[in-house]
């Protein structure tokens, strides 16, 4: 394969001596689809924090398209083409669904361009297409704060898509959703797969199977194993991590 799109090399993050990530190395290629699982505290969210610039690693390097992301601000990383959905759906509660999406879809994100120019018709059409896809069109003028939890999850994902990043990092996209909603979310994410690189962090095994992406297991801040779900599930180390050491 060619050069990796996103590469983490020996990344460690320590919070007051506690290591959330220890010498984590991971490569992500263009168009790759990856699920990341791992028990609580395995460092999944910290892994995203490092990529998106929220947390600066204690040591190691993070590169995107060959350029280092260390010390780059969150907004710059986002503008480079790395988008993130947070564990809890973070939407702008006091903006309507449509305005949430239009804000994310703004091609130029400087203050003066937002003041001066209107959103182009093509961007508006794109916003409507995305909104329609996630079924939020009837709620276009409803404030995001009054949506249900599932709708907020979709709005969060839709906002991310409207941002049109190259890499989508989805932290628990189906937490708190019903089975049917989970299924639809899987469909949605798979439909994005074509032109995006997608990383999904999840606990829901059913969902991971629906997605059918390759799975990476994180444990204690390191990659435990990688591969297709069936292979990973039968790995004794993974079973031990999830179920605890075998009884004596």
């Amino acid at each position, binding site marked *: 394969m060619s050069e990796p799109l996103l590469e983490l090399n020996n990344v460690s993050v320590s919070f007051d001596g506690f290591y959330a990530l220890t010498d984590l190395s991971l490569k992500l290629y263009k168009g790759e689809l990856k699920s990341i699982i791992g028990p609580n505290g395995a460092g999944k969210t910290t892994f995203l924090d490092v990529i*998106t610039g*929220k947390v600066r690693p204690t040591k190691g390097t993070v590169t995107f398209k060959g350029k280092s992301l260390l010390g780059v*601000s*969150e*907004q710059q990383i*986002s*503008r480079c083409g790395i*988008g*993130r959905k*947070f564990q809890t759906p*973070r939407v*702008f*509660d*006091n*903006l309507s669904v449509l*305005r949430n999406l*239009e*804000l*994310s879809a*703004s091609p130029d*994100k*400087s*203050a*003066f361009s*937002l*003041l001066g120019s*209107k*959103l182009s018709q093509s961007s508006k059409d794109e916003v409507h297409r995305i909104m329609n896809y996630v079924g939020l*069109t*009837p*709620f*276009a*003028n409803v404030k995001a704060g009054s949506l249900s939890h599932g709708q907020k999850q979709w709005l969060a994902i839709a*906002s991310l898509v409207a*941002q049109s990043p190259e890499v989508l990092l989805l932290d628990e996209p189906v937490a708190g959703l019903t089975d049917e909603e989970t299924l639809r979310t899987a469909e949605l994410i798979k439909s994005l797969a074509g032109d995006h690189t997608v990383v999904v962090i999840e606990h829901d095994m059913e969902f991971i199977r629906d997605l059918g992406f390759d799975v990476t297991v994180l444990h204690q801040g390191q990659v435990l194993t990688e591969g297709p779900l069936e292979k990973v599930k039968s790995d004794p180390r993974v079973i031990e991590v999830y179920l605890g050491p075998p009884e004596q």
Partner: protein
Amino acid sequence: MKLFQRLVPWILLAIALFILPAALDDFRLNLFGRYFALSITALAIDLIWGYTGLLSLGQGIFFALGGYAVAMNLMLNTKSLAGGNGIPKFFENYGVAQLPFFWQPFWSPIFSLIALWMIPAAVAGVVGWLIFRNRIKGVYFSIITQAALMVFFHFFNGQQKLFDGTNGLKTSTTELFGQLVGSPEMQVWFYRLTVVLLPLAFLVCRYFTSGRFGDALIAIRDDESRLRFAGFNPVPFKTIVFLVAGALCGISGALYTVQSGIVSPQYMSISFSIEMVIWVAVGGRGTLVGPIIGAVVVNYLRSLVSEALPEAWLFVQGALFIFVVVLMPDGIYGWITKGGLTTFLAAFGIAKKSKTYPQLDKEFIPVD
């Protein structure tokens, strides 16, 4: 309700333009001129607090700077107030023979007209940028603005040789176009000027709060760090609105100064800047009409209460603030527009009860 909301600004403007000048005597009209001048400050605070979530407790700085700019220009250009050196007499009392260098440009009325909003804007821009780029927010932002206010207050209060200290600068005895600024005729003109500038300030605030820029401001209030992850840098947004708010407060302070007849360091007292925030809270933050209503209502109430029971005002103000925070978190205007009035009347059987969930669900019609 939508039509009502659209009509309210026009109704208020019509009242201010035609009804008040016809109905009130010169003294009362002057008072309303002051309230409308203060309304511009309320609009500014709404822009930064109501929309963007920046609770500034230091807007008095910009208010007073605007007032001092206009007052010094008026004093310099009034011959009757000049001492031996051709500069205002108070300088002589402190043994100052030459006008301090930074007051020199204020001989020019044009410079002063620009300075009265440009200087506050510049101060706000620099202070704001330094605070915002260091990611200082919330309570810490409020504390810093209040500390800055105290610095300015003590500086102006202590420097008699530069600003006549605690006495402040008196404008009522100055002259403009050969007329006494404190005269009733001039005051009517200042009223008219205020009634013209207030709608302009309203339009400025509407410009900044509509469209995606305004949405970004609300997004900053809702979840600033999330906005960063969407690729926006909140710093320029916050700096711009803080700068604009500073300029508006400067204009407001200048208008208030010429109508009240004096500018003094009291305009930079902590309590006054907090009162400004109370006007916005009482009127309804996050709307542009609310702060205007709030500033007028609270200040008119203050005049009435102070005339009847001079000692009672602070208690009334405190009670009003608690009442609004507890019972009308959206302020007077927010309470009315969000159906508070209808609910209130319905409780007494005067209006129809509002629809509840199952009915709403059936009737739910998506809007385009």
